[in-house]
């Protein structure tokens, strides 16, 4: 397996089929949640399709929407 290339060659900014694993940090009103991937800044994510979620849960995020709940907080 080859070494990874720089991020600018690795990231599809179109989001086309990219899914990012993010941890729920806090819930916001209106079906939104602040989520974080690794050490990146928090991002506002629509979690309406995977509710109920709670801080600590791991979700798969694509184009600003959580598509799947990967693990509840305790297991994540």
């Amino acid at each position, binding site marked *: *397996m080859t070494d990874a290339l720089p991020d600018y060659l690795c990231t599809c900014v*179109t*989001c*086309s*089929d990219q*899914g990012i694993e993010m941890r729920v940090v806090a819930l916001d009103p209106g079906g939104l949640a602040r989520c974080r991937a690794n050490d990146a800044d928090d991002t506002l994510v629509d979690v309406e399709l995977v509710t109920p979620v709670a801080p600590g849960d791991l979700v798969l995020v*694509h*184009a*600003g*929407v959580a598509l799947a709940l990967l693990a509840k907080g305790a297991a994540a």
Partner: protein
Amino acid sequence: MKFVDEFRDAQLGRVLAGEILATVEPGRHYKIMEVCGGHTHAIYKYGVDDLLPANVELVHGPGCPVCVIPMGRVDDGIAIAREPGVIFTVFGDMLRVPGADGTMLDAKAAGADIRVVYSPLDALRIARENPDREVVFFAIGFETTAPSTALTLKRARADGISNFSVMCNHVTIVPPLRALLESPDLRLDGFIGPGHVSTVVGCRPLEFIPADYAKPVVVSGFEPVDLLQSVLMIMRQLAEGRCEVENQYSRVVPYEGNLRALQVMAEVFALRPHFEWRGLGFISQSALRLSDAYRELDAEVRFSVPGVRVADPKACQCGEVLKGVIKPWECKVFGTACTPDHAIGTCMVSPEGACAAYYNYGRFARERAVV
């Protein structure tokens, strides 16, 4: 990192490669197609195909939504972007996709207010912040991305944001797969099924492939071990004379998909009678438009669009690449006239396009092989 590190284990990858080798029937050539840009990208990034036996060939299908957008739709988007007072929002990769009269980046340089967003929600925020401007979101993507657009449209309506609209270019995965399977110039042995599309639609829509065409399908994750394990599962089906849909990515993909997402999509979208795919031509019921209930938020209703069909440049062989008939490096302009910096074809624009992925990761290996 959980769900990542264990699927990048080089030793496990070598074990799987050995098991794949053990299932290969001598003298037989296997062609396995992946139909997800994320898979194409990961295959080149991690050199997955280098671990496979020489007679197991991975074929890169039409899985990158940027790559399948026809030039005419780019021109239609630019026409809206040039309307006075419009803020036109797009995912970044669309900026460099050529239309007949240049790219969206060219239009932006010429004065159109075109802005890159990372989600439709960003576009809606821009609409909220600019109530005196018309904000249009150029929506692309397969069923993975469509729920995001659908939820955003529901929010726009619920919040009464009337200066927001969507130019919908969402496409669906099943019709092009059927078109490929009907293609006389393509012989495939199996499919690596799209992981994130299946997160939304589930595995059931893929069941027609084994049922009608007797080909195995394995829905796969995106890490190198995922892909190797999926190839092994396909090879085992072939060796045992089975053909069915299997779910290698079960840690993420429920077999029935995300029912709530499907419900939202059914409310907001309707199937178009037909839609043009670059390289594949018009395919029936292969794309989404806004449903009649959301007609007032449809940019193609709100604005006048040319709607002219534009033929691809003659030198471009994206169509053959998307169908897996030729490899990226077999295109006449690959790496010479067509590079990521100066793309002629869409497959060279998006990092998930087969040509760009190969150019960025694989061309050096090929140069070594040629030498």
